């Protein structure tokens, strides 16, 4: 292979161009442009209500009305149904975690069908990443602590073989020691080559693992920069995030 091939920036896994989205009559996203490259961890920042969750849901196909372009490995998703998008290898770990209370932990974990023959994590590997889950397998999904729920929600999408993960505020409302564990896990996933789009309010947490940042305000991207540029962006971030 020629040397030049290594020097090129990796291909974009996900590309949003002029993405707009509506909930019924309210216009939430007003043209979002964003890209995530192969093996990258991109963090989407923005204050409450900026449209971060709506962006992830639009990519997943969950928001009913959307326009513009969402390409995943050069394939247009904008008109596909939720389940078709999922089967292409897009996985969402939602903000509310969405653990099924009427299912056991084990049933929750093994619920999502494998969408790819390769790349799916084995149960053993998952239990190495999340040792707590092994002991809780027979518990009801509704009986877990917040941290356990979050781990189960992440573990659940690792088993499917999806290589592109969207994690919506995985540290929200969790104790510092759990946040650290989740941070280590996400870093580990990145090392294993997963491509990750992370939504976070906590940019100090994100700074430890992100390659690039996008900042959102009122349904638009207002800034984008690499992790190395973060120190120079502090004032802007304090302003944009209101922290």
């Amino acid at each position: 292979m020629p040397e030049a091939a290594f020097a090129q920036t990796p291909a974009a896994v996900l590309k949003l161009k002029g993405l707009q989205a509506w909930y019924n009559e309210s216009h939430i996203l007003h043209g979002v442009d964003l890209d995530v490259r192969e093996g990258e961890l991109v963090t989407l920042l923005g204050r409450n209500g900026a449209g971060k969750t709506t962006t992830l849901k639009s990519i997943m196909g969950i928001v009913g009305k959307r326009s513009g372009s969402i390409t995943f490995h050069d394939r247009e998703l904008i008109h596909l149904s939720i389940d078709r998008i999922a089967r292409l290898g897009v996985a969402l770990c939602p903000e509310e975690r969405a653990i099924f209370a009427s299912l056991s932990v084990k049933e929750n974990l093994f619920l999502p069908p494998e969408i790819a023959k390769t790349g799916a994590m084995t149960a053993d590997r998952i239990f190495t990443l999340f040792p707590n889950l092994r002991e809780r397998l027979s518990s009801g999904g509704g009986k877990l602590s917040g941290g356990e729920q979050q781990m189960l929600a992440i573990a659940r999408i690792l088993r499917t073989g999806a290589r592109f993960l969207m994690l919506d505020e995985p540290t929200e409302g969790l104790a510092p020691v759990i946040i650290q564990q989740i941070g280590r896990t996400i870093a580990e996933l990145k090392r294993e080559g997963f491509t990750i789009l992370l939504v976070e309010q906590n940019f100090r947490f994100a700074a430890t693992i992100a390659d690039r940042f996008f900042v959102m305000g009122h349904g638009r991207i207002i800034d984008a920069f690499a992790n190395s540029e973060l120190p120079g962006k502090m004032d802007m971030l304090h302003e944009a995030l209101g922290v």
Partner: protein
Amino acid sequence: MNVFGHVISWPQLYGQLLIGLINGSFYALLSLGLAVIFGMLTIVNFAHGAFYMMGAFGAYFLLKLAGLDYWWALILSPFAIGAIGAIVERLFLKRLVGLDPLYSLLLTFGLALIFQGLFQNFFGASGLPYAIPKQLSGAYNLGFMFLPVYRGWVIVASMVVSFGTWLVIEKTKLGAYLRAATENPTMVRAFGINVPRMVTLTYGFGVALAAFAGVLAAPINQVRPGMGADIIAVVFAVVVIGGMGSIMGSILTGFVLGVVEGLTKVFYPEASNTVVFVIMAIVLLIRPAGLFGRAS
């Protein structure tokens, strides 16, 4: 025995217990189907009685037009009526997703009237005979009473199908999909599962359960256009008592209320037609979510 001024004999008691169990078998199958449908689609399927009736007519047609006997009917009629149910879901119910449940209630109620009216138009209100299959004719002598073989079969078949359905829903992967989609259909879709198709099949399956009950009923009662309307009010009461959407709740409540009704016939015949509704009223007052239901 002398209760409330009625002289009661043991054979009479056993006889009514048996009838109660038979009725309970139908209540269980029908309310189970309603519960399955309600769990997944959150609609109250008022067309359920009509599908039960159509299941019985299915058996009748299969025999008269195709010469296919009871055993074929037991499989083919639920399959065909279930397919009609799936089409109804695709064509009509699907369009009502997200609207007030009142719409689907009115729609299924209207469908029930149309189906029943059509059959009445072509076959009149009186019943068409359907013979007990010869393998199931006769009676066992249990010592204390005679048990008609067919009635024993109905109880066993209903129990096997009911508990089989429960097992599938509670213990299998398919059941886990159903339970998960009941809780959060969007999330299940986001795992790559075609939930709309699952909803259609679930409705079809619930309808097939009603049709199966209809085939079981054909040799006991006659095949009549009004047979569904007659039984469905009690079945809805059973579902309310058991708790909407609780699978095991609807099965157990179905059998128990059938027996309670039978016993009432022995001890206080005047109340036998109303006892289920009295129980329903009491349960609604004390536990509005039903005996097995979870308050939401």
